[in-house]
């Protein structure tokens, strides 16, 4: 027994060496505890991503504009703004009297330094504002942002991570965040990578928009652990897997399903038929679109959640056109006929990356649907961390994929131009190129019309075979209400409030 006693002693010693990891809160104040499925990225906004990890930033860094429920910009740190005639200069009027937690004032110079600093990075937040060509300080509370060309996505970007403001002194190498947001990071109750605790910033100008005195964000990567934590009341909010939605609802929790804009389906990379000649024919690509029973796939793979689609742009995004949704209905006979017309009566062979590890049901449905119309599928095993690189290298003519981007225009940039990252075969088509150039220069209703034209063309040419706009589910505890926001994977922090009793 003496040995085991020594063992415990050792355990006690090592355990005492750590910082505290989020105990229960003291009575009286209200605490909001949220679970995150991803770890936090560093506090340097130039290295920040847009995804769920932005929730770690929201308590400390306030944004220039605030996006409302529909994703429209409303005043926040900037109280008003206006574009010049050519739509390449955005002038912002800043709120007066706002200070960072280190005491420095949030003025035009701080905004300039922040925007230029974030833009200098390589992560997705930087990519959002890459079109900024320069920033001018007009006076202490007026700042002019210059763009290399008109961009409809600048203002929405300023309401997300790209528009977050950090104390200018802390921009280079921030060890702890310095912001002007509603909360401050409580370093004594924070363990990097595990639990982050935020307490009120007493100097915040808009306290009433944030009803909680304390915010705790815990990293819980495992969906089972998140669901258990929700069910046992340890956390107030977190994403749940679609197949757990019914269980969680049955236990009295509130579940909001929403669509962050990701479109999944069979993405056809080799549209010129360089690797698989059949794919160079429009009829073949259209045949692939007719192969999928979208409703049945949503039912089997996503417990019925999500929306069937035929286009790359999700509802609410620029370019989305509801009339296009019926373009390709499930019709395997027609698919076979189209294949025959294109000169492939016996189908063709194609090698796909096997993504069963991450998307088992989607991969199974995809493989089966292709086999049903006579396409011979060979599956390649790809290690999880090499999936992106193998797709980008042009190893596969097509594959299952899920593309998400903050706006419709970002999707165009990501996939539809000759230089796009997610266009591994560098396919381009003069007609589409021309439309994209014109959209880039256009504004207002003219831009909408051109965008829809581009979308209709891409759907007609069957560049991809999308199935559905993916739904996510976010569950909150009984005592908390929240509203998901269009285009965001998680509800923004100001959207949480105690439920009315």
């Amino acid at each position: 027994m003496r040995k085991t006693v020594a063992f415990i002693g050792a355990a006690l010693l090592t355990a005492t060496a750590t910082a505290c990891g989020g105990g229960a809160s003291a009575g009286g104040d209200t605490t909001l505890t949220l679970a995150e499925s991803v770890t936090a990225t560093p506090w340097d906004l130039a290295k920040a991503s847009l995804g769920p990890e932005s929730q770690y930033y929201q308590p400390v860094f306030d944004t220039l504009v605030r996006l409302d429920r529909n994703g429209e910009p409303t005043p926040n740190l900037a109280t008003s703004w206006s574009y010049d005639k050519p739509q390449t200069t955005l002038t912002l009027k800043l709120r007066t009297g706002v200070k960072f937690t280190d005491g420095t004032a949030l003025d035009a110079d701080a905004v300039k330094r922040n925007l230029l600093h974030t833009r200098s990075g390589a992560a997705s937040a930087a990519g959002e504002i890459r079109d900024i060509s320069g920033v001018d300080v007009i006076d202490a509370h007026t700042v002019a942002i210059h763009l290399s060309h008109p961009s409809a996505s600048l203002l929405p970007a300023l309401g997300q991570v790209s528009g977050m403001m950090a104390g200018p002194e802390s921009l280079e190498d921030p060890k702890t965040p310095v912001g002007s947001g509603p909360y401050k990071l409580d370093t004594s109750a924070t363990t990097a990578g595990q639990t982050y605790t935020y307490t009120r910033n007493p100097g915040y100008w808009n306290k009433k928009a944030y009803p909680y005195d304390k915010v705790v964000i815990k990293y819980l990567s495992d969906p089972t652990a998140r669901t258990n934590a929700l069910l046992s009341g340890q956390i107030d909010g977190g994403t749940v897997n679609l197949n757990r939605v019914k269980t969680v609802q049955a236990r009295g929790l509130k579940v909001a399903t929403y669509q962050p804009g990701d479109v999944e389906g069979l993405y056809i990379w080799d549209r010129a038929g360089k690797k698989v000649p059949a794919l160079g024919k429009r009829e073949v690509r259209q045949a692939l679109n007719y192969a999928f029973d979208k409703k049945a796939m949503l039912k089997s793979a996503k417990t019925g959640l999500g929306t069937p689609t035929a286009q790359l742009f999700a509802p609410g995004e620029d370019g989305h056109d509801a009339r296009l949704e019926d373009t390709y209905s499930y019709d395997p006979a027609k698919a076979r006929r189209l294949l025959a017309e294109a000169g492939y009566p016996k189908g063709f062979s194609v090698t796909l990356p096997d993504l069963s590890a991450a998307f088992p049901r989607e991969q199974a449905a995809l493989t089966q649907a292709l086999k049903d119309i006579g396409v011979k599928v060979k599956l390649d095993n790809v290690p999880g961390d090499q999936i992106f690189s193998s797709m980008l290298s042009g190893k596969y003519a097509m594959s299952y994929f899920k593309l998400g981007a903050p706006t419709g225009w970002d999707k165009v940039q990501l996939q539809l131009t000759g230089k796009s990252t997610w266009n591994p075969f560098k396919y381009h088509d003069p007609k589409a190129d021309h439309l994209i150039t014109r959209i880039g220069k256009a504004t207002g209703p003219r831009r909408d019309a051109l965008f829809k034209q581009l979308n209709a063309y891409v759907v007609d040419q069957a560049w991809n075979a999308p199935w559905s706009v993916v739904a996510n589910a976010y569950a909150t505890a009984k005592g908390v209400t929240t509203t998901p926001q269009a285009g965001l994977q998680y509800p923004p922090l100001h959207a949480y409030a105690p439920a009315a009793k």
Partner: protein
Amino acid sequence: MLTFLIRRIAAGAALVAVVATATFLLLNLTGTDVARNILGETATRSAVAAKSHELGLDQPLVERYWHWAEQALRGDLGTSWFTGDPVNQSLMDTLPVTLSIVLAGLLIAAVLSVALGTAAALRGGWVDRVVQFAAVLGTAVPSFLIALVLAVTLAVRLGWLPATGYVAIDASVVDWLRSITLPAVSLAVAATAATAMQVRGALMDVLRADYVRTLRSRGLKPRSIVFRHALRNAAPPALTVLALQFIGLISGAVVVEKVFGLPGIGTLANSAAVRGDAPVLLGTVVVTVAIVVAVNLLLDIAYGWLNPKVRVS
């Protein structure tokens, strides 16, 4: 004894070095697109190239290895490619969590297996059969299943213990115990089953030995024979099994930590492996191997303490 110890320590250090080198090579030979994974699918090609350069991935493998090894020898395991956190700090944060549940699991397994094994060996009959059956069951059921069942029933349904999370011992001893109980029990089941059978077998052998018969014939009390003599002689094989179980418990901790959402070294290694965060993964491998080596060393010392004959040889 001293030269014996020095030899063992040197061999252990060599093993750690070999494993670290092999891991480094394995992690860096696969040619993953780490920079792309870090920046996400929306990053541009030039951004990805810049990131690769920043991480030094464009340098020759040998150079990168020397750089890493030199730092590691000075006790610095580098920084995470994804979060920029020092690996040492991440290990300091996660190790106590894993050690808490593994050592608590080991303690539970040690106590239970001696009790069950002794009962089975001494009583025989139905007690023996029940223990044997439970042992087979305990070995067969994977620990994640036990963890899931415990989490759903005792934590979620009944709310007796927390379903997820870890509370550091310096924050609250009671909460620490509450947070590690279910994970430790999940881990302990398989270890108890294996070790109990070992204790039972060894004790039965010892009880049949000549010297026990001699002790009996001298009229010593049965209790004294079992606890002062037989158990002590039956301990070494049981201890070996327990030490082997320790290694198994560390690997089992990966899954159990996941189910209970514990920020332990298993979770750290797992997320590092999924993302291709080589510095973090290397750090967890080095530390885990070092712990296993240290445990084996302690085991040798324990042998010597239990059985003076070992010290001489």
